[in-house]
């Protein structure tokens, strides 16, 4: 009896709660409930939102920075933050009519966290533009969200699809090049060096697929032949079995596309131990010979060649590198310079504006600014908001003070994310993977 009574009561309560919830959901106003998502409608705003009334005071322009300060790529977050802070310390935060403020958020190297933090930046901090995040999956998720909020995103990620299949008018890749874009010239260069057969070793996820995809596409397109392709899991701690297989491959050149973590150090150490570096010429991607890796493995990296859009020993960036070293004691990584250049590009666009631009206008202004002679070299943006610019073949040498760094041995100008292929055809085909390794 009592049980039945209680059951009936519980059911009634449940039904009542559900119907109240439904009613609330149906009746509430269609816009914001707490009055915070629609800045122009909110009287509490400081008026800077309204471009119509010119203000004697500087207009605040808020930049949200999403950087991985914790998690497995936290080293990148530190670099990015340092590059960004150094730029504003040097330049000053006053730009034309604007006063730049920065809100840094830790994205914890996770896409879900990056998304929530992007949401916080937009709805809580009401930022005008977001820099980052770095990891491919984060970048794609955040770009999708920001585009819907019409907040411009200065991308720091190398994921191809950020400016390809997932292209958005609100996303401008200022801090990096696409993954395959930066290895296309490697394929061409290898062929021109007289190599006709190649084997590849790349990390088995999107970044590695794109690295290998770029090299293989250009190498095969030039007339070369790829005889063997190896893929290793991202968390592999020992690459010697792969290196041994490459040792037995009878090829002219080996392309290595590693992820820039411990895998890169492991690859170089194994390749040196087994004599691969002496036997066959090795060309690698940007990150296999990043500063962090070079400092880690030391002299065995001497003379190893790689292909990237950033060379720390290039004349173009000498000033920046010297100042960065003086300030932080290390040679800047490509994430540090990526953040720095993004700051430069933002300033170049804002200098001529006297009212706060809409998201689309800001992207347009940044695309329209004169970018020749930037730290990336003579660059411009293509219609998909990706950089078209120089990519260099680099070699590790010892500097005068004994520190190792990369210097340019050949530079290929105006490299597009579609290389020499037709953009429409390129975008119609599926992205690079282990089953589709070349264009």
């Amino acid at each position, binding site marked *: 009896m009592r049980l039945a009574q209680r059951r009936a009561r519980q059911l009634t309560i449940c039904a009542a709660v559900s119907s109240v919830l439904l009613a609330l*959901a149906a009746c509430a106003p269609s816009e914001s409930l*707490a009055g915070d998502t629609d800045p122009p409608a909110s009287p509490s705003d400081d008026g800077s939102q309204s471009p119509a009334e010119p203000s004697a005071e500087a207009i605040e322009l808020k930049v949200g920075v999403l950087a991985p300060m*914790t998690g497995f790529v936290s080293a990148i977050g530190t670099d990015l933050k340092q590059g960004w802070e150094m730029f504003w310390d040097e330049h000053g935060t006053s730009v034309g009519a604007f006063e730049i403020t920065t809100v840094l*958020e830790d994205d914890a190297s996770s896409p879900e966290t990056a998304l929530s*933090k992007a949401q916080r930046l937009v709805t809580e901090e009401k930022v005008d533009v977001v820099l980052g995040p770095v990891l491919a*999956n984060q970048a794609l998720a955040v770009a*999708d969200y920001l585009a819907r909020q019409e907040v411009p995103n200065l991308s720091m990620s190398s994921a191809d699809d950020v400016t390809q299949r997932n292209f958005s008018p609100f996303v401008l890749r200022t801090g990096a090049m696409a993954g395959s874009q930066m290895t296309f010239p490697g394929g061409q260069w290898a062929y021109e060096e007289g190599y006709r057969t190649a084997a590849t070793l790349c990390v088995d996820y999107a970044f590695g697929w794109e690295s290998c995809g770029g090299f293989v596409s250009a190498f095969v397109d030039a007339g070369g032949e790829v005889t063997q392709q190896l893929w290793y899991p991202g968390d592999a701690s020992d690459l010697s079995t792969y290196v041994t297989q490459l040792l037995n491959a009878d090829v002219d050149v080996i392309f290595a596309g590693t992820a820039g973590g411990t895998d890169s150090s492991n690859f170089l150490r194994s390749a040196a131990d087994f004599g691969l570096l002496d036997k066959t010429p090795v060309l690698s991607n940007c990150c296999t010979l990043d500063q962090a890796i070079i400092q880690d493995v030391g002299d065995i990296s001497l003379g190893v060649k790689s292909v990237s859009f950033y060379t720390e020993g290039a004349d173009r960036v000498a000033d920046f590198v010297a100042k960065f070293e003086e300030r932080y004691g290390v040679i800047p990584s490509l994430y540090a310079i990526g953040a720095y250049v993004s700051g430069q590009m933002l300033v170049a666009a804002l200098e001529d504006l006297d009212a706060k631009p809409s998201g689309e206008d800001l992207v347009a202004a940044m695309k329209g600014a004169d970018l020749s002679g930037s730290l990336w070299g003579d660059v411009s943006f293509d219609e998909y908001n990706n950089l078209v610019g120089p990519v260099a073949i680099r070699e590790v040498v010892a500097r005068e003070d004994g520190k190792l760094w990369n210097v340019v041995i050949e530079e290929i100008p105006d490299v597009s994310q579609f290389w020499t292929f037709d953009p429409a055809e390129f975008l119609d085909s599926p992205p690079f993977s282990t089953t589709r390794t070349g264009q």
Partner: protein
Amino acid sequence: MTRTRRFATLGALGAVAVALPYVAPSYYVSVATLVLASAVLAVAVNMLVGEVELFSLGHAGIAAAAAYGLAWASGQGFDHGGQLGVAALMTLLASLVYALISMRTTGVFFLMVTLAAGMVCFGMAYRWSSVTGGDNGITGIRRPELFGEYWQFYFFVLLVFLVVTFAVHRLSVSPLGLTLRGVRDSQTRMQSLGYRVAGLKFLAVLMSGVVAGVAGVVLVWHHEFISPAFAGFQASALALVMVVLGGAGRLYGPLVGAALVVLIQQVLSTYVERWPTVLGVLFVLAVIVVQRGYHERVREALRRRRPTAPRQVQVSTSTEG
């Protein structure tokens, strides 16, 4: 007296929950949504802990199966009904597999089997890139127009959470729930009484899997994005952490645990760079300090399930002594 107090507490909580979107900024409403959605996953894990004392380290795998089903269907242009259909199918499939491989295990073996199943789900999400988008995940998932706005979605998830919690509560006081607790307390006795223990566990995992599938759908609708991290070990482990933090086996434990974990992850991390340490310390404290209290309380409470109110008072005072 206690019952009145309990109802008063519930009423106050309910009022806060309903009023939240009207007073809090949108970001905090969406954090609350995430808390509720994560709590649904924790409820799925908690069900097994409370009823059968089986600790799963792979439930994010089932949630991810549902979420990937929905994401894939949305990419294929299915309407929302079709997407939910695919998600339901995937949930059932994943739950069946989980239930079949774990129905004859107990204790640490159950933990290992579910961990392995979770890793298989993660591996598939990671490697089967033509369907799952690999590491890059799937973007462009949209929730139905009906609750497209953040606050509409909040009410929807609140409703889902309440319905799921109520259903689990009903289950725990049903004859089936009692039988399951019999299995927990003494498998051999239940066997000698003629119950098919493996079958009962199969059923328990299957039901818990369905709840995990629901969690997967609300979570993917919340993020409107999915990547393999959704199915990863960390996601499963965090669900278990939520259960432990909130007090394993308690009806409202998942909500408390989910709130703690999500708030630390989302809100505290803005101010404290070493937030993972805070989470870790809290977890350790929960296990060392609270564990015995929770453990006894849960045992007592479950043994004399459906007590009259005064007995519960006795239970809670006895744990303090």
